[in-house]
C-alpha cells in the first residue's frame, strides 16, 4: 500500500558536483586575480620605475575612491540594481565639505555633514527604487543629473581650496614605514566589513536570492525593499566619504569633481566578475578588477602610452572578460552536447 517503499536504500547526496580545486581555481574571480598578478609581473620586468614604492602610493591613492565605492556597488549590482549617481554624490559631498569650511565650520563637522548628505542622497535613490518601485537604472540616471546639478549649482564658478593642512596631509600621507596611503586603512576596514556582510551573513545570502528572483526571495521572508533601500544608503554614504577624501586629496572642492567616474566604477565591478543581471559575483574579484584597471593604467602611463590607448585597453578588457565567459560556457555546452551525442549512439550506458 505504502507508496514508494522499496526499502529505500539510504541515499548519499554529494554536496558538490565538482572537485574543490576546480571550484576554487576555475572561477571568474581567480582568473581576474591571475591576470592582475600577471600584469604586475610583466610591468615589474619591463616598465622602468614601475617597481618603485611611489607606484604603489600613487596607484592606491588615486584608485581609493573607486575601490571604496566599488564595495557597495558590488552589493547593489548583485541585487540586480545599479547606482549611476555615485560620482555625482561624490561631487555633492565635495561641495558640501567645501561650503562647510567656507562657512567657518570646523572641518570634521563639515566632513560629517558631507557624509550625511551622501547618505541622504542614497536614501533618495533607495526610496525611489523601493518605495515608488522604479527601475534603478532610470532613477539613478535622473539623480546623476540632479545631484551633479545641485553640486554645480551650489558652488557655481568657484572652487574652495582652503582646507586645514593637517587634514589634507592626512589624505596624502602613507602608513609609516610603508608606501601605502592611510586611506587604505579605511578601505581595508570597509572591505572586510562588506566582504563579511556579503559572503558570511544571512543578509548577504539574501542579496544573491534577491538578485536572482526577487519574488521567491520575498516568499522566503526576505524584505526585498528594505534590503535594497539600505544598500543604496550605504552606497550614498560611502560615496559621500569618498567625496570628502577626494576633496582633501586634491585640496579642492568643486562641483564637477570625479565627473564620469560612475562608469569607471561600474566597469571595474563588472570586470571583477559581477553579473549585471544580479545574483553572481564576489568582492575579491571586484577588488582585483579595480586594481587591474588601475595598475594597467599606471604601468602604461609610465611606459609612455597615452591615455587614449589606456581607455581602449580598459574597454577591451571589459568586453573580452564578458565575451570570454560566454565563449567558455558555449564551448562547455558544445562539449557536453558532443558527450550527449556519443552517449546517444551507445544507449544503455546512462545513470
Amino acid at each position, binding site marked *: 500500500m505504502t507508496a514508494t517503499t522499496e526499502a529505500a536504500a539510504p541515499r548519499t547526496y554529494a554536496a558538490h558536483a565538482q572537485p574543490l580545486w576546480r571550484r576554487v581555481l576555475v572561477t571568474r574571480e581567480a582568473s581576474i586575480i591571475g591576470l592582475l598578478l600577471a600584469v604586475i609581473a610583466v610591468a615589474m620586468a619591463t616598465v622602468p620605475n614601475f617597481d618603485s614604492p611611489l607606484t604603489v602610493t600613487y596607484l592606491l591613492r588615486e584608485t581609493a575612491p573607486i575601490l571604496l565605492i566599488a564595495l557597495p556597488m558590488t552589493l547593489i549590482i548583485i541585487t540586480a540594481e545599479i547606482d549611476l549617481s555615485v560620482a555625482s554624490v561624490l561631487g555633492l559631498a565635495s561641495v558640501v565639505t567645501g561650503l562647510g569650511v567656507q562657512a567657518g565650520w570646523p572641518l570634521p563637522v563639515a566632513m560629517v555633514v558631507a557624509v550625511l548628505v551622501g547618505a541622504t542622497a542614497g536614501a533618495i535613490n533607495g526610496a525611489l527604487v523601493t518605495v515608488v518601485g522604479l527601475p534603478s537604472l532610470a532613477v539613478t540616471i535622473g539623480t546623476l543629473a540632479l545631484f551633479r546639478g545641485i553640486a554645480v549649482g551650489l558652488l557655481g*564658478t*568657484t572652487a574652495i581650496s582652503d582646507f586645514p593642512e593637517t587634514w589634507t596631509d592626512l589624505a*596624502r600621507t602613507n602608513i609609516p614605514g610603508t608606501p601605502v596611503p592611510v586611506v587604505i586603512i579605511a578601505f581595508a576596514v570597509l572591505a572586510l566589513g562588506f566582504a563579511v556582510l556579503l559572503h558570511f551573513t544571512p543578509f548577504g545570502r539574501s542579496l544573491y536570492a534577491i538578485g536572482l528572483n526577487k519574488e521567491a526571495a520575498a516568499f522566503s521572508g526576505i524584505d526585498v525593499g528594505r534590503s535594497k533601500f539600505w544598500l543604496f544608503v550605504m552606497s550614498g554614504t560611502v560615496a559621500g566619504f569618498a567625496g570628502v577624501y577626494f576633496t582633501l586629496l586634491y*585640496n579642492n572642492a568643486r562641483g564637477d569633481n570625479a565627473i564620469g567616474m560612475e562608469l569607471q566604477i561600474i566597469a571595474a565591478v563588472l570586470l571583477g566578475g559581477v553579473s549585471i543581471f544580479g545574483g553572481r559575483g564576489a568582492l575579491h574579484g571586484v577588488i582585483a578588477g579595480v586594481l587591474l584597471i588601475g595598475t594597467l593604467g599606471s604601468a602604461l602611463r609610465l611606459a609612455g602610452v597615452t591615455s587614449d590607448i589606456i581607455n581602449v585597453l580598459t574597454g577591451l578588457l571589459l568586453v573580452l572578460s564578458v565575451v570570454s565567459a560566454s565563449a567558455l560556457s558555449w564551448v562547455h555546452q558544445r562539449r557536453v552536447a558532443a558527450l550527449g551525442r556519443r552517449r546517444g549512439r551507445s544507449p544503455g550506458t546512462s545513470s
Partner: protein
Amino acid sequence: SGGDDAGSDGGDAGGGGSEEAASITFLPKSLGNPYFDTSNAGGADAVEELGGTFEEVGPSEASPTSQVSFIETAAQQGVDALVVSANDPEAICDALNEARDVGVAVVTFDSDTNPECRDLFVNQATAEGIAQAQVDLITEQIDDSGQIAILSASANATNQNAWIELMEAELDANHPDVELVEVAYGDDDDQTSFDKTAALLQTYPELEGIVSPTTVGIAAAARYLSTSEYQGEVALTGLGTPNQMREYVEDGTVEAFALWNPADLGYLSAYAANALATGEISGEAGDTFEAGELGSYEVDEEGTVLLGDPFVFDADNIGDFDF
C-alpha cells in the same frame, strides 16, 4: 598622438646631469586644443635645440584632477622638468610639490598655480596688459556704450578669472556707459561655447559685443555669429589664434582680436625649464637666462618670467601669421 619619439630612457638622477641636456615633459590643460598644440610645438623646438628629450602628455578633458596622475607619472619617471598649464591653481599643487621633492623642476605656463607649488611661471603677458587690450578692443568696436558679455573658458580657469576681474575693474573705472551683463562659461568646449553664444544673443537682445578671452570660445562664437542675423551687428573680440580666426576677420564677423605667440610661449617655457633643471637658475627674482632666438630673460618678483605684450591681429596683418 603628439609626442614623437617618447623614449624617455634617461633621468634616473633627477636634476643636474653631466650634459646640459634635460628631459622635459609638457602637460597642457588638455590634449586636442590647437593653442597648446602650437605652444607645445614651440617647446619641442626649444628642447630639440637644447638636445634634450621632449614629451607631451595630458588628459583628454580639461579637469584638474585628471592632470594629477600625469604629474605623478612624471615624478615616477624622474623627468628633469615638467612644464604645466594648470586647470586649477590649487588642485594640482600637492602633486607638483611631491614631484619637486623628488627633483623635478616645475615650470607653469599659460595658467599659473599658487606660487609656492612651482619654481617658475612663464607669463604670456601681464594680466593687466591682457585685460587692458581686450577692454580697449571691445569698447572701441562698440563706440564705448552698450551691453557686453564675456564668454570664458571653465569657471575655475585661473588666468581667465584674473583677467575678467581686471576687465570689470577697468570697465567700471573708465567706461561708465558699457554694461557687462553676463559672464558665460563655455568650458573650453567647442559645442558648449557655440551653444552659449546662441543663448547669450537670445537672452540679451540689446547685446552690443562679446569678449571671449579663450581661443576655443572666440572661434566658436565667431562661427555662430557668422551664420546668424547678428553678423556685423554684435562685435566680437578676445584672444584667438590667427588660423582659427582668419575666415571671420575676412568675412567681417570679427574686426580685431589679440594674442601672444603661443609657440614663443612654449619655446620660452622650455628654455626656462631647462635652465632650472640644469641648475643654471634657481627661480629667484633677478636670475637671468638665455632663451635661444628670443634672447635673454629675467625672473622677476614671485618667480615670474614675462613673454611680452599681447599682439593685436586685424584684417591688415593677419595674413602675415600662420599658427
